[in-house]
């Protein structure tokens, strides 16, 4: 047996350059986080603003969605071809937050759920770079759970603002979403844990609806144009989507 000289220098160079790239990508996804923080602070106003002012809030979010798009395309440029799964953990957290903001904004504008494909349109996550950047179904579902958490808070605050029709609509919407989640066979992972938490949000909203309907405050909900989450028609939904896409 001869003594073999061990030489891993080329492998070391490979892993070191990967490490450097990971840092660049993480640095760049901080930009996405910044954009999300701005969005979050604007969207937070929804809890303290009469529902009539919601279009103003949506208008205010639009430049920040443009910022999200540019941050994402910066990340796409960094990821080497065909290596999506190698790097996706580096931005996943920020992407979930951003998608939550997109879905919430769209819901505020339309009363509808923005589909995963439409989210990709808003954030310009394109199929042509699917080997480098995608929105995974798990990430999208995480964002929906965040939105449900936020809507239960909104239900409380809309009542405080004297808007009694919103909780009824939120309750219906959140129940639809929950029914959807119940179709999934979730494994014992973080999504499962967060899904298990949704029921407290539903319960919270149901209690609010109970409180206000017991006192007869809920009246003619469907006829009202005002409030949050009023379901609008197809045409209007397209308009809002185009707004979010920056068109």
């Amino acid at each position, binding site marked *: 047996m001869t003594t*073999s000289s061990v030489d891993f220098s080329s492998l070391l160079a490979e892993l*070191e350059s990967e490490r450097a790239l990971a840092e660049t990508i993480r640095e760049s996804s901080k930009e996405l986080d910044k954009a999300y923080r701005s969005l979050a602070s604007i969207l937070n106003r929804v809890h303290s603003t009469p529902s009539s002012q919601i279009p103003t809030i949506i208008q205010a979010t639009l430049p920040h969605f443009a910022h999200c798009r540019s941050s994402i395309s910066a990340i796409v440029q960094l990821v080497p071809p065909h290596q999506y799964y190698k790097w996706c953990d580096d931005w996943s957290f920020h992407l979930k937050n951003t998608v939550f903001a997109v879905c919430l904004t769209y819901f505020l504008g339309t009363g509808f*759920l923005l589909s995963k494909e439409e989210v990709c349109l808003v954030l310009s996550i394109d199929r042509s770079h699917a080997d480098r950047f995608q929105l995974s179904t798990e990430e999208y579902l995480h964002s929906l759970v965040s939105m449900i958490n936020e809507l239960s808070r909104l239900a409380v605050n809309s009542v405080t603002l004297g808007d009694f029709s919103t909780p009824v609509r939120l309750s219906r919407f959140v129940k639809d979403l929950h029914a959807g989640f119940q179709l999934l066979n979730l494994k014992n992972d973080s999504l499962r844990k967060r899904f298990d938490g949704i029921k407290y949000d539903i319960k919270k909203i149901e209690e609010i609806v109970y409180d206000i309907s017991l006192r007869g405050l809920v009246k003619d909900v469907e006829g009202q144009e005002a409030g949050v989450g009023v379901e609008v028609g197809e045409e209007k939904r397209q308009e809002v989507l185009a707004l979010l896409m920056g068109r």
Partner: protein
Amino acid sequence: MTKSSSDGKGQQPSTSSPPPFKRQKRDFEEADSKLGENTSSSRSTMTTINTEQRSSRIKNVFQGFRDELDEHNDRRERLIKTSRDVTSLSKKLIFHLHRYDVRHHDPESNLEIDPPEQGDQGKEGEKEVSAKSKNPNVKLLREARVKLEEVVGLLRSAAEKEGFSSLGTDKIGEGVEQEQGACAEIPLNALRAQRYERAIGPGMEEFIEALSFYHYLRYGNLVSLQEVQARFRLKPFAEGGSDALGGQEGAILLPIPTSRYLLGLSDLTGELMRFATNAVGQGDTGKIVNPVLSLLRDIRNELDPFVPLIRDMKKKQSVTSQSVKKIEDVLYAIAVRSSEYGSDPQALQEMVRRTLSAGGGGGGREEEE
């Protein structure tokens, strides 16, 4: 949002309807008379249609998600199972290799375990009994090779079945459509191999440990990443075959990540330590144990820069250091005692046993005989 919002100056959309706050206040005054009234009876048809449309859309979308997530989870679980099977077969192979008889150690004959058959049927070659193949180690290595092929086959077929192969027509779960040109089949399947790397990785490490041990016994050196990868190309590489360069080309069926390769080699050091101490126990006084020690030292030194780059490498390095120390202690014991006992195999065996059972710490202590 109402109609006026899209024209750019829609900041005051609900001026036409009474402010909700005022209206609800009025509602409140009428509360008693309305208590318990069924609100759904007064739904406007338009909103009802929208709401139902929304519910069914959500349902459809989630059914799609369910199928996608189920497919992903099933595939992951199948691969974890494969990983476990690979681990257990690799452990058996390592156990088998530890039966290597150092008294018949002959690097020459080890190199020639397969010239007659030049392929995978190890059994046939055994009939041609030459002086060299009488060596029990040749038989052992032949058996090891059959076992090795079995593990390779397991990993290859898993990779093929789960569509890691660039020949697979399968696309990745998210329903990403095949793009023309740049983004064709190969990349998408390469993505899948990355996606499930964590499921199959532990088995792969164990396999690399077994393969590198086999390779060391047979060739006396460290298997390279290229040599490992060559076994997982679309066109399988025949060991000892004439097309040594053929393994460098061809599409990759199952990519071997650099980190798994290095972690597997780190595990190899434990096996080499056992091999070296067994060798001493069987009478070796340096022919085997010295090269093993220097290889172990080389591996440890070369792996050190990887500690911050690869998770788990730190722990493995400390195990390697312990292995190095154990061999050093054994060699010390040999040096001290061989002046007393010469190279009497029984005395050596006893020495190794005591050195190792002393936990590597008290290896040099005088023992009563």
